[in-house]
């Protein structure tokens, strides 16, 4: 298990050293918080939705974790391109440990990124109700991070180059974000969108965060926890399977 640790540490070091990446990926959530909370906030309140920044913050935290996690997973393509993957593949370490180290590293980085966004939201007026709920908030942040890093890693294991990258961004990441209830409540949606949202893992992540942080939930927090945990297990399984079958050309 030392192998898992050192590959985890590698991801952390790479993230910590690239401050531009850290700051760069904070810019987008910051912009969203700014634009949406001031733009839609008053309308949301008038329509009887309550405090919009409270509603929005779990969504934007979920979004930033989604983006960072998919990207950390997809970083595996860079390891293929720059050759480091070969170093890990000839080492006497089972493939599942290599991928576990990678995924845990990516998940740690992206939940930390989510935590930073959460801190920023405090400046926008988000209020923590109690610290017990904060604990569950972190659990959900990590689960979202874990699930989507696994997804990104699985995709990267199957892809050979970065050409398909834009495709992933437009057809996977954006819809996942938009149809998750991150920026608007799910209960007023038309039936077919509600239906789609049901199959979106991020819906349960964002809902779980809302349950933990503002005691407001659509599916129910415990249910969210189970769904997200199940999805994580399935995704990490798929990623491990593709990864262990991989050859290095």
């Amino acid at each position, binding site marked *: 298990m030392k192998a898992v640790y050192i590959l985890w540490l590698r991801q952390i*070091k790479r993230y910590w050293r690239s401050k531009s990446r850290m700051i760069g990926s904070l810019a987008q959530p910051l912009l969203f918080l700014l634009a949406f909370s001031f733009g839609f906030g008053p309308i949301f309140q008038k329509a009887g939705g309550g405090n919009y920044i409270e509603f929005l913050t779990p969504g934007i935290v979920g979004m930033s974790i989604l983006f960072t996690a998919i990207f950390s997973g997809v970083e595996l393509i860079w390891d293929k391109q720059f050759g480091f993957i070969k170093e890990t593949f000839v080492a006497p370490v089972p493939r599942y440990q290599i991928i576990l180290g990678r995924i845990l590293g990516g998940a740690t980085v992206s939940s930390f990124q989510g935590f930073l966004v959460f801190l920023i939201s405090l400046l926008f007026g988000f209020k923590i109700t109690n610290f017990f709920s904060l604990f569950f908030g972190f659990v959900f942040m990590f689960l979202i991070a874990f699930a989507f890093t696994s997804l990104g890693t699985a995709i990267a294991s199957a892809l050979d180059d970065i050409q398909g990258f834009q495709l992933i961004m437009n057809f996977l990441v954006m819809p996942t974000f938009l149809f998750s209830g991150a920026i608007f409540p799910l209960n007023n949606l038309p039936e077919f969108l509600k239906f789609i949202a049901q199959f979106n893992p991020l819906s349960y992540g964002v809902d779980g965060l809302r349950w933990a942080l503002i005691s407001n939930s659509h599916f129910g927090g415990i249910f969210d926890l189970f769904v997200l945990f199940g999805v994580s297990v399935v995704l990490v399984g798929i990623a491990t399977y593709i990864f262990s079958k991989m050859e290095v050309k």
Partner: protein
Amino acid sequence: MSIIEVKNLIKKFKTKDGEFTAVNNVSFSVLKGEIFAFLGPNGAGKTTTIKTITTLLHPTSGEIKLNGFDVVLNSNEARKSFGIVFQDPSLDDELTAYENMEIHGVLYNLPKDLLKKRIEELLKFVELWDRKDDFVKNFSGGMKRRLEIARGLLHHPKILFLDEPTLGLDPQTRNHIWSYVKDLNIKEGITIFFTTHYIEEAEKVANKVAIIDKGKIIILDYPQNILEKTNAKSLEEAFISLTGHSIREEGADSLDKMRLKRRFGRR
């Protein structure tokens, strides 16, 4: 006693219009302590062979044993027996030389204090100790190759694989690298297996040479015997008389350039 045994190795790749046989029924063995050269033009199947032996690719059929361990059935034991320097770099550019070595040591499960000692010893051996805390992205091509050699030796492998170890390096650095390699072979008794398309390297460095062309071994013997068998004055002549073409033709040069670009031009 042979430390590398390859029997009837076949490696096929799926392509758009069917199958391509990169390695076509290759058998050979390498004795402990030998310096063994795999000589052939670009595209002959050298790298595919080395990647299949070192568990990066799965053989389509055939049997490979390293240090007595089957690479498919007992891959982790087989992996412990060798170190490898790839044709393209396999370092993490965003980490320091020391950190790259450290990761390798942990992956190969070396005890902590031994690892520290060994890293120092090897980085001094390849003359990179004073650059140990520099990021690899700031290293030249030759320095990266030296670091890869040091890394490949960290876990005391019995076999060192070198895939075109001098490609794209200047003559001085080349000589430097070969003197390290010969040194290792003599002092530590490490078996060396290298591929090259530079005839003079095979001639100068290797005890035994296998000439490979279009996925097949054409001849495998001591360089002296190859010359006698083919009635040639040099390996270059022997190569032409055996294959009917020279080792560097049909656009090999442009392929070389492409590889170099891939190797150094990425960042």
